[in-house]
């Protein structure tokens, strides 16, 4: 009996242990589910991407230059595109920025809702990364006070756009944005009556007014709908896309093609010296808007379309 009794107790004890262990494990899993990301890792990634973005022309842009060079009817235009390819080679070889305007540091961060950012202030970490990236890679610091024009000295503060997304990863993009092309960008609050024709006119007017100023061949980020602020941020966000990517929204994809063809009839050409390659790609983002509104944001991007990304 004793033996039996004790064996039952042993079994009970074992079962209780297993149950406790299982519940503890479940508890542990629940505790562990927000994945931890150190903000210092964000800072390191930003520092690295600032350097990579400014020194190395992205492959999609290089390919677009090569394709455009083959199709450009203007001899001067062909020469300019050839020089831009040569410039990218020299920059990579000599670890020299592609362009002296190394941009304001624009950073997009898609933060997974299951990611737990630890170890400090996230935005300060981004700024720390910008500070290091610009200093270590001999990049030009272009951030200054708007009135006194006194340079902040380290290219901070960065312009940071965050968005919460499903998952537990942090996806970040560094998009250094030059002043020459940014100055040619526009936001329009159109009357709904002007419709699609009005949107096209807004884009054409923007490119025509910009002419040679924003270093063509340009790339256009066009956001339609939303609000004044939302349109502008989305227009910039489209610039994260690869030049050969296809827009999953068929309406936007079609408009991208139409606008590209229209803009390239303007004759502005590479460096604005005349030609068929005024624009390499138009990105379009369409979202619903207020019944009273038709917002359109046109973000003009120069040919030094720098964009580098990392997933943490």
């Amino acid at each position, binding site marked *: 009996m004793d033996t039996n009794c004790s064996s039952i107790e042993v079994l009970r004890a074992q079962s209780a242990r297993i149950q406790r262990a299982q519940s503890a494990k479940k508890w542990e899993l629940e505790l562990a589910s927000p994945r931890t990301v150190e903000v210092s890792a964000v800072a390191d990634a930003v520092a690295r991407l600032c350097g990579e973005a400014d020194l190395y022309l992205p492959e999609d842009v290089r390919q677009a230059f090569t394709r455009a060079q083959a199709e450009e*009817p203007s*001899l001067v235009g062909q020469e300019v595109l050839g*020089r*831009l390819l040569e410039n990218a080679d020299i920059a990579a070889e000599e670890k020299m920025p592609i362009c002296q*305007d190394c941009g304001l540091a624009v950073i997009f961060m898609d933060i997974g809702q299951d990611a737990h950012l630890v170890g400090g202030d996230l935005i300060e970490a981004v700024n720390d990364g910008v500070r290091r990236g610009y200093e270590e890679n001999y990049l030009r610091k272009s951030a200054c006070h708007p009135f006194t024009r006194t340079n902040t000295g380290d290219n901070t503060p960065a312009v940071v756009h965050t968005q919460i997304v499903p998952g537990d990863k942090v996806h970040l993009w560094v998009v250094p944005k030059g002043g020459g092309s940014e100055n040619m960008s526009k936001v329009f609050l159109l009357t709904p009556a002007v419709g699609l024709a009005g949107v096209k006119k807004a884009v054409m007017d923007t490119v025509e007014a910009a002419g040679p100023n924003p270093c063509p061949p340009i790339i256009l980020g066009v956001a339609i709908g939303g609000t004044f602020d939302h349109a502008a941020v989305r227009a910039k966000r489209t610039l994260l896309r690869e030049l050969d990517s296809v827009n999953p929204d068929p309406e936007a994809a079609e408009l991208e093609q139409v606008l590209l063809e229209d803009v390239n*009839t303007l*004759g502005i050409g590479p460096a604005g010296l*005349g*030609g*068929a390659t005024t624009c390499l790609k138009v990105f379009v983002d369409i979202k619903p808007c207020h019944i009273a509104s038709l917002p359109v944001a046109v973000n003009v991007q120069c040919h030094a379309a720098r964009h580098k990304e990392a997933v943490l």
Partner: protein
Amino acid sequence: MSELIKLNPPLVDQDVTALTAGDKVLVSGTIYTGRDAAHKRIVETLAAGGEPPFPLQGAVIFYVGPSPPPPGRVIGAAGPTTSYRMDAYAPTLMAEGLKAMIGKGKRNPEVKQAMADYKAVYLAAIGGAGALMARCIKQAEVIAYPELGPEAVRRLVVEDMPLFVVNDVHGGDLYEQGRQAYART
């Protein structure tokens, strides 16, 4: 497009009157850098009866704010900045003898008129080709307004810097001509 024309600053009237919009030139010799902030100070200095930081007679000014020189280099990337921001100051400098401006992008009617009046030209470098342009720069030295950082005035010694004549003294405008030749609207 004509053959390459060599220009060696300081320039005289004949150097610039011989140029036509669309010509390709190679500049070798001493030129000076300046952007908006430096232009503002130069114009204020002149208005107060002071001396400019470099001799303006025959001078060539390059609108550039270079990136810092990496180790072993005299300068970092050095492509042109957009010129219209200097439009407010350019006629004053031309009246003092400036003969050529290097930049990118359109100039306003007042600047074009001043080019005709004072015999000066506007030359375009390829915007965004900063690493390529840096290869033409053999010496660089900050000579004024060091506190402006990238916007300080530098004396550059350049060799065969490749440029296009955009606006000549005769009213020619390569941006207009080039665009008209390829516009399909």
